[in-house]
């Protein structure tokens, strides 16, 4: 179903962090941006669609007003809002927002870090852009910071802090189908496997809380009102977001899942894990029962690689990209 394309070399290898690959497609310029975290740096590669031009940029986690050493970065992700695209970095010290090409830092939010390290680690992790003007970022205390993003400029404000998770936030996602009919806008996940389903607005509203099984939910997606969650047990579960009804449970991987992605137009689901497998699934809704079904489409084994990031490169799932721990490349696969 897919075949391997030429890899993209990165300046630094990928660290073993959840969802450690972000892809931004810039159709007008026939470019795709890729970003991968390596310890305290972020590698950004811009690749032209003809495969002829690659340009590289490195971002350091040099936070303003932080006297101490650079901190480790937990995640880097592009946030696509109708008015603008931003690159968001989360680290042990705070949250940085850049223009999408990484050229200018437009906003910096410092986390409350103690003088001496405490047993509870401090970091931000989990990034999602929601509706027209929100970017939400999770933190290790379980809070979710909601930022209000103006259509341009750096006048970004922290509009709300959502305190529902008891454990460190792992990942967050907004409804990706673009459907306006779905009530739920965002889902957030934590280290206990708890999922919170949110309706966005001036005040975010908790629609539902789906309790976990004391196992981390490392990656989560929201598609046509269905929560797709990947866990440390290697399982994928599909829940109806608003009711919390479990529709499907798949023993998908032999090790921790590190990344999920959905191609919203085709309903393809990508899952990737430490077991070196990337799998492609197909999600479909049965209108009569309003149930979601999942079927298996494809396996790819990236030999001897603990995969830490996997993303579709387009909305149809025509191509996907993968990277793994200690790997200095982004491997691309395209449908045959």
């Amino acid at each position, binding site marked *: 179903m897919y075949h391997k394309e030429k890899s993209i070399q990165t300046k630094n*290898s990928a*660290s*073993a*962090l959840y969802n450690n690959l972000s892809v931004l497609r810039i159709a007008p310029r026939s470019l795709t941006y890729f970003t991968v975290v*390596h*310890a*305290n740096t972020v590698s950004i590669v811009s690749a032209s669609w003809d495969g002829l031009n690659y340009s590289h940029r490195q971002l350091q986690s040099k936070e303003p007003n932080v006297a*101490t*050493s*650079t901190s*480790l970065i*937990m995640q880097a992700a592009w946030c696509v809002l109708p008015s603008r695209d931003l690159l968001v970095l989360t680290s042990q010290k705070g949250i940085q927002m850049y223009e999408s090409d990484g050229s200018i830092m437009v906003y910096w939010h410092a986390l409350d870090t103690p003088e*001496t*390290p*405490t*047993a*509870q*680690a401090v*970091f931000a992790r989990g990034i999602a852009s929601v509706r027209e003007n929100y970017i939400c970022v999770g933190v290790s205390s379980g809070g979710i910071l909601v930022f209000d993003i103006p259509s341009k400029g750096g006048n970004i404000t922290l509009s709300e802090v959502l305190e529902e998770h008891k*454990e*460190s936030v*792992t990942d967050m996602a907004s409804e990706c189908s673009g459907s306006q009919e779905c009530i739920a806008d965002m889902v957030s996940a*934590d*280290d*206990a496997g708890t999922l919170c389903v949110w309706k966005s607005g001036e005040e975010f509203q908790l629609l539902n809380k789906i309790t976990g099984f*004391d*196992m*981390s939910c*490392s990656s989560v997606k929201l598609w046509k009102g269905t929560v797709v969650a990947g866990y*440390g*047990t*290697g*399982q994928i579960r599909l829940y*109806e977001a608003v009711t919390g*009804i*479990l*529709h*499907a*449970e*798949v*023993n998908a*991987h*032999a*090790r*921790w899942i590190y990344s999920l992605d959905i191609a919203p137009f085709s309903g393809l689901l990508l899952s990737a894990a430490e*077991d*070196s*497998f990337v799998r492609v699934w197909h999600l479909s809704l049965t209108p009569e*029962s*309003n*149930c979601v079904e999942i079927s*298996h489409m494809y*396996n790819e*084994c990236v*030999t*001897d*690689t*603990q995969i830490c990031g996997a993303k579709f490169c387009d909305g149809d799932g025509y191509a996907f990209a993968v990277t793994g*721990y*200690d790997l200095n490349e982004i491997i691309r696969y395209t449908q045959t």
Partner: protein
Amino acid sequence: MSSRTLPLLFINLGGEMLYILDQRLRAQNIPPDKAKKVMNDIITTMFNKKFLEELFKPQELYSKKALRTVFDRLAHASIMRLNQASMDKLYDLMTMAFKYQVLLCPRPKDLLLVSFNHMDAIKDFVKEAPTILSQVDETYRQLIEIYTPLSSGEFQLIRQTLLIFFQDMHIRVSIFLKDKVQNSNGRFVLPTTGPVPHGTQVPSLMRMFSCNGEEVSRLQFPTGGNYSSALRQGSLEMFGDRVIKLGTNMYSVSRPVETHMSGTSKNSAQNTKVNTTPNPLAKEELNMLARLMGGLEVQKPGNTDNGFRVNLFATDEEEEEALMSRPEEMSYGVLNIQATKDQQSDAALAKIMGDFSEQGDTAPGASSKGDDLLAMMDMM
């Protein structure tokens, strides 16, 4: 990242160091009383109460350079001396062994079982020295108290922190190459067969449910792997079968006549040494180490060092580069296979040295913490 990482890093690297030193002391026919003294002195230093207090405080990881300095010091805590090249080799073996264990441990929490495998072996080393034994037991208690309540997510964060620490280290180790668990490019082999981690189901089952929770269908998908059910969970208490073998002594095969070591009648009780077939390359590795060690001279501290330099606090980059980039000296008189390998690992080391200088520039906090611990080791 996780502020609970350092104790596990230290104990497991220390454990690997002791396995190698124990083997070397035997292979070089060091008189048993002196060998015993070396092992006891190092273990006493490792598990010193004040040192452990400092170690178990929540903190970020030291820089690679600082931690290396700690182990340089630890290795010289007794009457034994190692020259720089030997120490390099020792440290390479220790770090690659633990990197392998971190990468391969089935679930993040199994890092604790890996640590207990090292602790069990250390306990066995000092089983006839009650005072040291009580220090070791105290460390078990602290490990259990701090780590057993941690969630799966916290263990994953510890594991991810360790993996960042070991990132881009691809030194080839002949025992791993021989066992086919490491590829010639230095990357470890990840099996897609065998038991899944405890708490994980063998992949392939897909279950669909109706709105009222009834299972409506069950399907299988082809996994591309060949997995079997999880093994039982290993003991997370002071005693018991740890089940997983990662962290046990992989060098044990090359000490076939260990029972005649004075006083240490090796009983088989809870000996979970891996591999029962002799592995000649494990010995080669250690012979190599022996040669590199030049003279594993047993000296009382204070005696004149015969052409033998201990420069633990050296931060002079040039000096270290000079030390690290001398393949001729490192590969003198060794097997061909080793010589090739060393040229490779030198490139890797040179790369790591690059990391060192970067780390040194950017993490003053970390190295000053390193000094605290070193200062404490000085006092001992």
